[in-house]
């Protein structure tokens, strides 16, 4: 405890020392970006976007990151430092979406605009605004695409669902249910994975969002039904793992694999036909929009509005594929590679 207090007060002193001159100059807007880690390419891209935008608008930007995903304490200290330095706004991808709420409230009480990036806080209105990917729509796009690829055969599809984890975090549920809705399957409870009764779903399995899990889950589901011809995957590493299984079963050419993320290795896999289509999200845009919102807030006092019909601001998602289908907007792999992260 003592050491923590010492660190906090040192940070406070340091922050005040830095903050003082910046206020002496004519009111430069300052912002903080706090990410889960600074290793994951997704967050690296976020930092890039925020830095570039802040430079463009002549803002001061301080960035912080936890050591690993789940490192809540470092994020709390970062918010405290931002409060002490008199920042105008904070962009945060929270590691612990519930526990961070108290210190976020303190920041807001100090007149700081807090925007949750990518990951909504719980409750979502604990932040002034949330800028995130519409994960349900991301799933819906690949669901619609897969159904259109099959045409009339969609009625006889055999679908494997490769999810994230047994705890069904919100991103897992949204992408899964979005896909099924897009494919034209009755969802039952849209907050629950696996309660659908449609015969076309062969089964669900979890992948932990990595290659090993994708491979194992695909093996398991092919054992349940070797005639699977549509594979939904939570993200591109899981898709790459699933493809390894399909290849070892000699089925890689008869199966449609779809995914979500839009990371560079994933888009490359779309290019090589390993993944049929992927929904791309935009961490760079997310952060840039967040910085703009902070600049606007400092100037006018306006807080950003959520997208119509949603409780967060949708930072956009696009379908990446080289076999576009009619009536479904998509971008080419070439464009996807320009926009990809990582």
């Amino acid at each position: 405890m003592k050491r923590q207090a010492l660190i906090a007060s040192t940070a406070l002193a340091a922050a005040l020392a830095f903050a003082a001159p910046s206020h002496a100059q004519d009111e430069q807007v300052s912002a903080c970006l706090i990410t889960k880690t600074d290793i994951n390419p997704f967050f690296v891209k976020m930092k890039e976007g925020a830095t570039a935008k802040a430079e463009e608008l002549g803002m001061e930007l301080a960035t912080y990151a936890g050591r690993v995903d789940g490192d809540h304490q470092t994020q709390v200290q970062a918010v405290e430092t931002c409060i002490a330095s008199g920042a105008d706004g904070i962009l945060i991808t929270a590691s612990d979406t519930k526990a961070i709420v108290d210190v976020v409230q303190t920041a807001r009480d100090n007149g700081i605009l807090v925007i949750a990036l990518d990951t909504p806080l719980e409750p979502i209105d604990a932040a002034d605004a949330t800028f995130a990917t519409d994960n349900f729509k991301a799933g819906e796009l690949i669901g619609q695409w897969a159904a259109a690829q099959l045409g009339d055969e969609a009625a006889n599809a055999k679908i494997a669902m490769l999810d994230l984890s047994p705890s069904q975090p919100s991103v897992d549920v949204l992408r899964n249910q979005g896909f099924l809705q897009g494919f034209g399957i009755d969802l039952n409870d849209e907050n629950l994975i696996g309660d659908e009764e449609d015969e076309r779903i062969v089964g669900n399995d979890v992948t932990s969002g990595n290659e090993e899990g994708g491979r194992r889950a695909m093996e398991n589901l092919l054992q349940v039904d070797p005639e699977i011809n549509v594979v939904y995957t939570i993200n591109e590493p899981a898709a790459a793992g699933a493809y390894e299984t399909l290849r070892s079963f000699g089925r890689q050419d008869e199966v449609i694999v779809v995914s979500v993320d839009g990371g560079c290795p994933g888009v490359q896999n779309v290019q090589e036909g390993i993944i049929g289509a992927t929904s791309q999200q935009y961490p760079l845009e997310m952060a840039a929009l967040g910085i703009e919102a902070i600049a606007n807030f400092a100037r006018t006092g306006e807080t950003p509005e959520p997208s119509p019909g949603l409780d967060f601001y949708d930072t956009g998602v696009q379908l990446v594929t080289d076999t576009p289908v009619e009536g479904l907007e998509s971008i080419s792999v070439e464009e996807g590679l320009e926009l990809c992260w990582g």
Partner: protein
Amino acid sequence: MTSSVDTAPAARGAQAYEESLEQSDRSLAEFEARHQSALDRIQHFLHGYPTMVPVIVLLVSVLAFGIVAGDRFFSAFNLSLIMQQVSIIGILAAAQSLVILTAGIDLSVAAIMVLMSVIMGNLAVSMGVPTPIALLVGFAGGTAAGALNGLLVTRLKLPPFITTLGTWNIFFALNLWLSGAQSIRSQDIDEQAPILKIFGENFGMFGAQFSYGSVLMVLIFAALWYLLNRTAWGRHVYAVGDDKEAAELAGIRTNRTLVSVYALAGLVCALGAWASIGRVGSVSPQSFYEGNLQSITAVVIGGISLFGGRGSIMGPLIGALIVGVFQSGLRLVGVDVLWQVFAIGWLIIIAVAIDQWIRKVSA
């Protein structure tokens, strides 16, 4: 053990003691024999052959799932698929067993493996180093990482749990740093360094599909069985695990044995790294995050005592297969993933409970 000076009076005392007890002792034995139930006999049998517990569990579960899930489960193909699925955790369990036999524990096995796969992949694919050299660097790295654990345990006298909790974090951080949390794609490996994926290749036999990775797993267990049961080193490992101080008094250089155990475990992890690239298809820094716990699960279900010095190295191989059989069987019956996790949890507890029950025979 005993000197001639005190054996004489002790022997005389014991003789007198035995004399007075001889009659009652004998009747006690008869009493037991009369009332020995089938359960008691099983208990005695299992005490003599502890590895039979996991073997029986494996056979029974294969039969049970074969009846419930039918041909989809009980086919040569599916059974060989289970072998493929458990191969990496099996190899980690082999490394883990070595350490647990010395009454230690190694939480860093999976982290060493993933770190070495990233090093091999970076060298061979990204930097264009010849694959054999990349592999050798990986093997040396794994051995060094294991030796580091061993040195911390013996020189700084840190408990193995704490030591490897620390190095687990360290190796994991290094892994993320070197890889940038980004996978090396399967297709890039095919192009630059296909040898890295050799253990993912399959060969067919009687309708089964065996991967070279699962063969490697079996060979590693066989090699360790030989080392542990047919060499002086192996006897030293068991002795150190059973009672380190007694082993030291008997003239075993226990610290040296311990460091060699951790280093060998590290080398086995590096072999696992090579196999994992073939199994997963890509070099995946995010995979096997819970591999350490899964390896401990296999070891425990395989009947190796966490207190050291007891258990057969073949147990964890069976233990890993049991976990694989349960996962596959429950999956094919249509049980939700959640309940698969639930079942494995009970399996661990039951395995340890049976182990304790068997030991009561000697108590």
